């Protein structure tokens, strides 16, 4: 009875499923993210004079703050669970490839973020009386592109940070400069779409986002093998 270990993609999906099962069981990161989202939405609402800056203008800003922080929460947890009882060792000893581990973690993180945003974006639209229509759909797409980049880089740094003494400090510290091009492009694009500009006007920014995603998924998958081998 020959055992056939899963290939890279099936291995990745296996790991992603396992991660999501754990998160579903505990739900701590998910609920923390939602609580934070509501808090941010509320604070941002009340910190400006409504006659000067309308909620509509503030909405894009809140969106990205919520996204970034819920991403950091999820990413922190991502390798935290592997470090706790050295579950990562079991993964490394198995025949599954290093790329599969990275991709699996990244996919799990991405799905987690999507779940959070599925609640956060409608909440944003609701509380800020945003027009629900094509702009919101386009912005959701931009958010997704941004999430891919955030997860690509963040998963790698989460794996690195968890092996160090300053894990909780290092993940946000290392990620920040890498999130900047993602957030800058995505936020600017989303702001313009929200303001009613046509999508073609933000073409350059979107292409930059996609380029970032592709380059860094590739680079981080490669880099991941380096960070694991001892």
């Amino acid at each position, binding site marked *: 009875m020959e055992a*056939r270990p899963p290939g890279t993609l099936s291995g990745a999906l296996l790991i992603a499923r396992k991660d999501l*099962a*754990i998160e579903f069981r505990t739900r701590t990161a998910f609920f923390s993210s939602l609580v934070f989202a509501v808090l941010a939405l509320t604070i941002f609402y009340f910190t400006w004079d409504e006659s000067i800056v309308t909620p509509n203008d503030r909405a894009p800003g809140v969106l990205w703050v919520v996204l970034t922080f819920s991403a950091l929460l999820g990413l922190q947890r991502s390798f935290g669970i592997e470090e706790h009882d050295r579950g990562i*060792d079991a993964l490394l*000893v*198995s025949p599954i490839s290093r790329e599969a581990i990275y991709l699996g973690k990244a996919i799990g993180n991405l799905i987690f973020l999507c779940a959070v945003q599925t609640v956060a974006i409608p909440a944003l639209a609701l509380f800020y009386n945003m027009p629900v229509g094509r702009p919101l759909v386009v912005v959701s797409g931009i958010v997704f592109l941004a999430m891919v980049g955030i997860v690509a880089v963040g998963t790698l740094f989460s794996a690195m940070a968890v092996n160090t003494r300053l894990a909780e400090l290092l993940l946000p510290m290392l990620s920040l400069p890498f999130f900047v091009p993602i957030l800058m492009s995505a936020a600017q694009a989303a702001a313009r779409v929200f303001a009613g500009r046509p999508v073609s006007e933000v073409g350059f920014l979107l292409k930059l986002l996609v380029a970032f995603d592709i380059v860094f998924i590739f680079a981080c998958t490669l880099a991941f093998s380096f960070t694991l081998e001892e």
Partner: protein
Amino acid sequence: MFGRRRAVDAVDLTLSAGDCVALFGPNGAGKTTLLRLISGLLKPTKGTIRVGGQSLRDDASARGLLGLISHQSMLYAALTPRENVEFAARLYGVADPRSAATKALERMRIADRADAPVRSLSRGLQQRVSIARAIVHDPRVVLLDEPYTGLDAAGGAALTDMLSSLRTGGASLVLVTHNVEEGLAIATQAAVMLGGRIVRRDDARTIDQRVFQSDYRAMVLGAIDRANERVSVPA
């Protein structure tokens, strides 16, 4: 190598099917490092590890023949034992992972607690789940780092039974332990590791346990004295 210190030096070990090497040695002798090297968690600075004829470095599927039981449980506390072991079975591509998981849990006599989250189990029971996870894919080589720690009498008996049946099935074992009695009971070879080297090798079936025990104690104490001597050299 850790920095400039050789954790494991010039170790040459060959195992055949059904062999069991009991590896004794004081803390810091390099036993855990050796296991981590064999399992592929650490890459050797020099030399190769071969499992079933395949080099571990070149062939990832060679890892599929290994099972590792270490100090940490390597379990996911939020999942149940069944989920943990089934996940491991799927990682190794075992056909019918669900029944393989059930069988492994039964062998370690933990099947009755299979559906409560691992964190609700005591350390000893977690250890049993950890062992079940390590052997669910019927490995050819099993590496065990002090597996009897934390196990009660029933757990220990289940482990010994399981190791014997693994050996009868043709698997090789490397057993790191402090307990000379338990180690010699199932071993075919006995080795002692000091300062990263294997300093003594015996056929475990023919040696006298008491003689071995006192020799071993002498070796360990001697090593401690020598280490103390080195530290007190004046600058």
